[in-house]
């Protein structure tokens, strides 16, 4: 919804207000064109209300059954702005529907009933309805329902940009206050404020809540690293786009870009925190010191919400605190994610994950940091640890289904390291840690030994992904080694194969996909694949895009690749799923070869390439079934993709360098990678070279 709603507020000069939800451009004047879904079993009421809503110039869709409504909403996540539902319905209780919608789609819901008893109204409030109308409903009451949409968006917007978006904040209130946006005064105001943003706008694509058209900003790995560094420096709570922009000091980057990226990032963090339900795995603390602070908090919050078992909270905290480098939270989340997802149902993921994600986000800084911010030095840190990691990486990633699960986690872990904080420990430790129980088993394949050799990385070699960076050679080896070791896992780095294997194996889910958000939940990797396999060719596209992108950017610097890839991948994967299947499998293949330079990379590339030969080309195939498709999520709203991406829980991605080097295989249950919407541009994809990964190769 944000994506769609954000746009609507601004009436652009072109006067095409976009209530852009999924790309629809609606009428010119907000609130006209508001897309309402009407649910009521009473045909008389239904008809009357429909007529009234149409008289208010809203776009009405009516259905007389709750199930129908839900499926409509699921199919077209961004197809509606608000839902009006009756309380008493034969097939499903109105409040239940309300809950579902709130969890899955987070749309504002208005309840209505002939019953005006206080208890019923209270029930509506507690279930999260944003309003309660008493029948007979008068048209005046319906005239103002747009306020709920605006309010919701505004709140979300504000969440993202705490104080940065003064303009947006001003805009929104302004908008909400003015019923008639087309009024010249309003337009003037908006136009002026928008003008600024519109300067760069090229087209009507609103891929962001800002509804501004701006040239796509590619959030390369480096850029994202800078971003994350800036955010961490400011503190996640205080990170406002303006300051972030200043800290980043990147010419040509606008505050809007940062704002939208921040939004996504936050979503991502939220997702991460939502993921760490699993108590057991929390031991590993991937989180960066900074994150760690959030971690404990998040844990608590999570615990409070009931999502995170108390013990996990403790573990997380312990993990976080105990970790020297890595802060708690993430490690577990990663692993946990896997675990969590495995038994969580999509719904769970949604509801809980969301909350958790929030929590996780903090904790998972590592994770999210990872994808995007794999700084060279960080990688180096990892490197130390991950000496053996290289090998480990392989196992981690490559495993077939099993590993995939872990891998994502591991990978993720590895990633955070890049952030720097985690690097040393976290990456290595993270990866392994997360996997702990699972990984061990996975590793037992043979990789376990590798793992243990690593610096301390617990069996989960997952971290290897990082290590490879430092150890270029080792990295390169991984893929190779592992491939041999792991049946299907083609390289950790390359992970794509693994990843791909994951996906198919996982079959998670259909429902996950549908939930999109949920997809992450199950096993990250699985989700990704599932999605990939199942649907959405786009998913692949995204993923591929993600991966490839960055790698091309830096040849030697894994980190750079990682960063890019991470970000790219993440987005890509997620974005593609319009439905939000985006199981983004961001395959960030981090090429370990950094240190050694091209040589290694090349080696790895070659290796990878060879391995990947049959790998699924990201571009063209989705994990197995895939319909090749479009890599680009162009038609997906960036927002959608992003949110889908973010929602993804753990996924693993491998970043592939354009040269084919695997930059990093990140397996995370929740893929923190924060892909910018922009990343998924086709052009970028080309750069990257998706063929890095082959899902097929990953043994299941």
């Amino acid at each position, binding site marked *: 919804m944000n994506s769609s709603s954000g746009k609507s507020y601004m009436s652009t000069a072109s006067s095409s207000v976009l209530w852009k939800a999924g790309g629809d451009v609606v009428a010119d004047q907000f609130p006209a064109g508001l897309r309402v879904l009407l649910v009521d079993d009473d045909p*008389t009421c239904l*008809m009357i209300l429909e007529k*009234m809503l149409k008289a208010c110039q809203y776009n009405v869709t009516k259905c007389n059954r709750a199930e129908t409504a839900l499926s409509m909403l699921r199919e077209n996540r961004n197809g509606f702005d608000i839902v009006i539902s*009756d309380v*008493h319905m034969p097939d499903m209780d109105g409040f239940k529907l309300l809950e579902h919608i709130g969890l899955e789609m987070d749309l504002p819901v208005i309840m209505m009933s*002939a*019953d005006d008893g206080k208890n019923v109204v209270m029930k509506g409030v507690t279930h999260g309805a944003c309003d309660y109308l008493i029948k*007979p409903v*008068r*048209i005046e009451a319906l005239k103002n329902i747009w306020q709920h949409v605006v309010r919701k968006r505004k709140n979300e917007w504000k969440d993202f940009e705490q104080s940065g978006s003064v303009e947006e904040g001003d805009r929104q209130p302004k908008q909400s206050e003015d019923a008639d946006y087309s009024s010249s005064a309003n337009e003037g105001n908006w136009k002026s404020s928008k003008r600024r943003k519109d300067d760069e706008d090229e087209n009507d694509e609103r891929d962001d809540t800002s509804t501004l058209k701006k040239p796509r900003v590619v959030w390369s790995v480096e850029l994202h690293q800078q971003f994350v560094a800036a955010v961490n420096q400011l503190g996640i709570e205080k990170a406002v786009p303006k300051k972030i922009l200043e800290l980043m000091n990147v010419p040509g980057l606008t505050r809007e870009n940062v704002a939208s990226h921040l939004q996504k990032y936050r979503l991502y963090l939220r997702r991460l925190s939502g993921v760490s339900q699993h108590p057991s795995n929390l031991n590993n603390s991937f989180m960066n010191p900074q994150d760690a602070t959030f971690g404990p908090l998040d844990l608590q919050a999570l615990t409070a919400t009931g999502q995170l078992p108390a013990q996990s909270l403790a573990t997380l905290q312990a993990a976080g605190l105990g970790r020297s480098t890595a802060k708690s939270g993430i490690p577990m989340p990663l692993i946990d994610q896997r675990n969590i997802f495995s038994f969580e149902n999509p719904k769970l993921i949604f509801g809980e994950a969301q909350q958790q994600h929030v929590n996780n986000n903090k904790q998972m800084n590592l994770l999210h940091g990872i994808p995007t911010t794999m700084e060279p030095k960080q990688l180096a840190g990892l490197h130390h640890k991950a000496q053996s990691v290289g090998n480990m990486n392989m196992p981690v990633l490559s495993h077939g289904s099993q590993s995939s699960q872990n891998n994502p986690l591991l990978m993720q872990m590895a990633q955070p390291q890049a952030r720097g904080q985690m690097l040393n420990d976290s990456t290595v430790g993270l990866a392994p840690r997360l996997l702990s129980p699972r990984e061990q088993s996975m590793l037992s394949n043979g990789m376990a030994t590798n793992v243990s050799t690593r610096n301390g990385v617990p069996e989960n070699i997952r971290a290897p992904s990082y290590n490879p960076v430092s150890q270029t050679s080792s990295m390169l080896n991984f893929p190779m080694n592992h491939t041999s070791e792991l049946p299907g896992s083609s390289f950790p780095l390359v992970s794509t194969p693994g990843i791909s294997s994951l996906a198919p194996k996982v079959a998670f889910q259909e429902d996950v996909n549908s939930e999109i958000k949920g997809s992450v939940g199950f096993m990250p990797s699985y989700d990704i694949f599932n999605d990939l396999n199942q649907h959405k060719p786009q998913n692949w596209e995204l993923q591929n895009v993600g991966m490839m992108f960055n790698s091309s950017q830096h040849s030697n610097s894994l980190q750079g690749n990682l960063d890019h890839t991470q970000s790219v991948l993440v987005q890509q994967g997620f974005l593609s799923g319009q439905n939000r299947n985006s199981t983004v499998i961001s395959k960030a293949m981090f090429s370990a070869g950094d240190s050694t330079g091209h040589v290694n990379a090349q080696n790895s590339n070659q290796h990878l390439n060879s391995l990947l030969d049959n790998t699924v080309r990201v571009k063209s195939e989705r994990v197995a079934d895939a319909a090749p498709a479009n890599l680009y999520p162009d038609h997906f709203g960036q927002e959608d993709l992003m949110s889908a991406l973010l929602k993804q829980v753990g996924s693993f991605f491998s970043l592939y360098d354009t040269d084919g080097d695997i930059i990093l295989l990140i397996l995370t249950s929740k893929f923190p990678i924060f892909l910018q919407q922009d990343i998924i541009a086709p052009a970028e994809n080309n750069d990257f070279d998706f063929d890095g990964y082959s899902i097929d190769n990953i043994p299941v």
Partner: protein
Amino acid sequence: MDGYGMQNQIACIRRSLFDQGYLDEQFIQLEELQDDTNPNFVQEIVTLFYTDSARLIQNIELTLNSRPINFSKLDDYMHQFKGSSSSIGAKKVTSECAVFRQYCAAGNAEAYISSLLPHIYTD
């Protein structure tokens, strides 16, 4: 003129419905909704209402006739009926439903029915 006379008549009847409390301002809202794009909106709605309420009433009757009376079901039907009629502006029906529901709550459907049954079918 005939047409004029008829229109007058209709207007009178309509007026009386309001005066007698059969219709309330909700009905006016419906009338306002009617426009050129939907010239027969009110008519359609009322027809729909009648069809739907006939079905409802049938169900209510069945429930009332069954022994023992399922009050919760009855309450549900009444609630539905009340919703429909209030949406249409059928004031009296709505209030009757409300009263009926109170009786149902008290578990005293028979008394209510016997006293009010004839009224339910009016309007």
